[in-house]
């Protein structure tokens, strides 16, 4: 920041000097107004932009995320449709592959047309109607994609509208059941990235509230809450999660959960989030401890803000800097953990797809006779590239927000 010297005065209580005083104040005011304050975020962003490796990682991540979001609209093959006889374990190839949805739609439209043209008393009307209903139920959208949500379905329809039956050839090969690896990697990225996001948000929510409450109230409450964290730190949560996941995947439990409308994947995400908050809580507590005696907290108290208001409106926004730094470290850790569990067969279950699961499928078909390298390399690379970029970006963000490294 460039500083302009502030004009000084000697204090004399007569009229002309009072005018001088006013003039001086106006001058000070104009100087102050001409200076743009640099917030932590804009300064951090400026410094991050100077870090080339971080920016490269950021752009890589942006591309990966965008690809994951628009996956349903890309002309990919079906990620789950099995064709064991003709397409089992094909090595990467460039032959085009057709979906056959356009023909299907045409047949369906034709039948519907006939139905409309038919008289209401026609004998074959009921049979035709049943046939159409059957065709609709077996529609490729339901066969080629695993229960797509509203938005995904719209995107798939858009894709069919634009690209028709065209699919990108199996440039990454196919797997044991004849499914296209490229398409599976793309669809897997959605689950893996969503897990990183949701689980991190859960850990953020728990960690920040726990740490802020503990730090603000202090005393005995703080003591007890921190002791709980100490005990929790030495519990090997990863093993407990494996334990819990194995029970949750029992058919009976799954059915019970489904009755309550709880998806197993949701439970999985929440659980991962619920074990990654410990460090966050400690860090936030430390920050709140040092902030809670500042004047702005006293000011908030004097105007009658409630304790919760002080914690969540005044203290929490002030610790966001360090929270962001920890967030960039938590996201890759969470994605890695999800991949780890899915690799062991205890995370995401088929027909959902995640990167860890794909690597596991690759490992299972390894034989000395033939190396199906494409089944491991592409999913492994996708995972490694994402984690690599996240790590670099995390380092960059930490440096950018670290006031000690400022102006170096």
């Amino acid at each position, binding site marked *: 920041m460039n500083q302009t010297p502030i004009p000084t005065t000697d204090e004399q209580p007569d009229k002309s000097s009072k005018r001088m005083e006013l003039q001086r104040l106006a001058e000070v005011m104009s100087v102050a107004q001409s200076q743009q304050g640099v917030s932590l975020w804009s300064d951090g962003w400026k410094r991050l932009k100077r870090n080339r490796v971080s920016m490269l990682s950021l752009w890589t991540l942006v591309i990966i995320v965008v690809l994951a979001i628009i996956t349903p609209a890309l002309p990919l093959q079906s990620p789950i449709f099995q064709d064991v006889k003709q397409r089992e374990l094909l090595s990467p190839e460039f032959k085009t592959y057709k979906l056959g949805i356009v023909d299907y739609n045409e047949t369906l439209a034709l039948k519907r047309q006939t139905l409309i043209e038919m008289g209401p008393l026609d004998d074959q009307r009921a049979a035709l109607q049943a046939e159409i209903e059957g065709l609709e139920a077996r529609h490729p959208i339901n066969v080629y994609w695993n229960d797509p949500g509203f938005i995904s379905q719209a995107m798939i329809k858009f894709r069919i509208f634009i690209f028709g039956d065209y699919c990108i050839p199996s440039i990454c090969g196919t797997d044991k059941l004849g499914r296209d690896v490229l398409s599976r990697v793309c669809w897997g990225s959605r689950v893996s990235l969503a897990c990183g996001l949701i689980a991190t948000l859960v850990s953020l929510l728990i960690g920040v509230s726990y740490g802020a409450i503990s730090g603000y109230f202090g005393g005995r409450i703080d003591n007890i809450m921190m002791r709980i964290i100490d005990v929790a730190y030495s519990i090997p949560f990863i093993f407990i999660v494996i334990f819990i996941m194995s029970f949750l995947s029992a058919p009976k439990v799954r059915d019970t959960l489904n009755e309550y409308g709880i998806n197993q994947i949701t439970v999985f995400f929440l659980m991962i989030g619920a074990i990654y908050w410990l460090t966050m809580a400690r860090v936030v507590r430390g920050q709140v401890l040092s902030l809670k005696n500042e004047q702005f907290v006293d000011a908030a108290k004097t105007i009658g803000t409630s304790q919760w208001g002080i914690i969540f409106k005044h203290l929490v926004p002030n610790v966001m800097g360090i929270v962001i730094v920890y967030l960039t470290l938590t996201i890759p850790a969470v994605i890695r953990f999800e991949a780890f569990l899915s690799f062991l067969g205890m995370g995401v279950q088929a027909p959902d797809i995640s990167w860890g699961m794909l*690597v596991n499928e690759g490992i299972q078909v390894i034989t000395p006779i033939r190396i199906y390298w494409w089944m491991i390399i592409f999913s492994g690379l996708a995972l490694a590239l994402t984690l690599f970029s996240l790590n670099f970006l995390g380092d960059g963000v930490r440096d950018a927000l670290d006031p000690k490294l400022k102006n170096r």
Partner: protein
Amino acid sequence: MQLLVFLLKRLGWMLITVWVVFTLSFFLMRAIPGGPLNGERVLSESVRAQLEQRYNLDDPLFVQYTTHLWNTICFDFGPSYKLQDFTVNEVLAQGFPVSAALGILGMTFALLLGMTAGVVSAVCRTSIYDFSFMLLATLGIAIPSFVLASMAIVLFVFYFQFFPAAGWGELKQIVLPAMCLGAPFAGYIARLTRTGMLEILSNDYIRTAYAKGLSTRTVILRHALRGSILPVVSYLGPACAGILTGSLVLEKIFAIPGMGSHFIEAALQRDFTLGMGALLTYTVLLYVMNTLVDLSYSIIDPRVVLE
């Protein structure tokens, strides 16, 4: 005296932790419908009753809890639900040495490689060695060990045929899993050593050592290294936890009959007693490791006070 108090305190906290883990997993297990006896085969009433009696599943919940707790205190984890004719203790006794050997080898590898790379990078700062070592370190940290292991299998087992694919017993079979296990930790240790070393190298006493006319080697190895391994030592605690988790996947990939693969198997088969036994062993192991790390910290740096 101070040491004794420290150890006693730690022991107390360890017991509390183990108890929490025990209670948590016990009630989770019991709260979930479909116990370990509900396999694919439907059992007849009488067989079920007999089995339940054998595993004490017919008692009231609280009685089950206390019996189980008491047995656990006596280090008796009971018979395995799924592996017939084996008690959990036997399975653990078989698996533990294997996992320990793998873990120790992996850790040694990580320390050797990581510290060498870190020292070299710090001494030849901004050289091509520094750059490539740090790139490798970041790669090692970013790539999950199971991806690394699968790629290593494709490359070194099937393509070049340096190592056998799986199994346990020979030295040749241990090398690849231990290296894959240690790789991420080698990366972390290299980065920590480099940072610590750079900080130490700018100190006055290093300049003094050089001024005395000591060779670079002596200065680095005798004077600088000791100060710069403190962050590495404090990282060893989390690293041990990481090695334990990492060995789960590597034992699965390389078909090593260690505790990790037994635990995974137990979890997949819903073998409650074996899973609980392994879980408690892991908890104790982790706690002991952390305590050892804290102890060694105070030995290396006498200014650290044990709490």
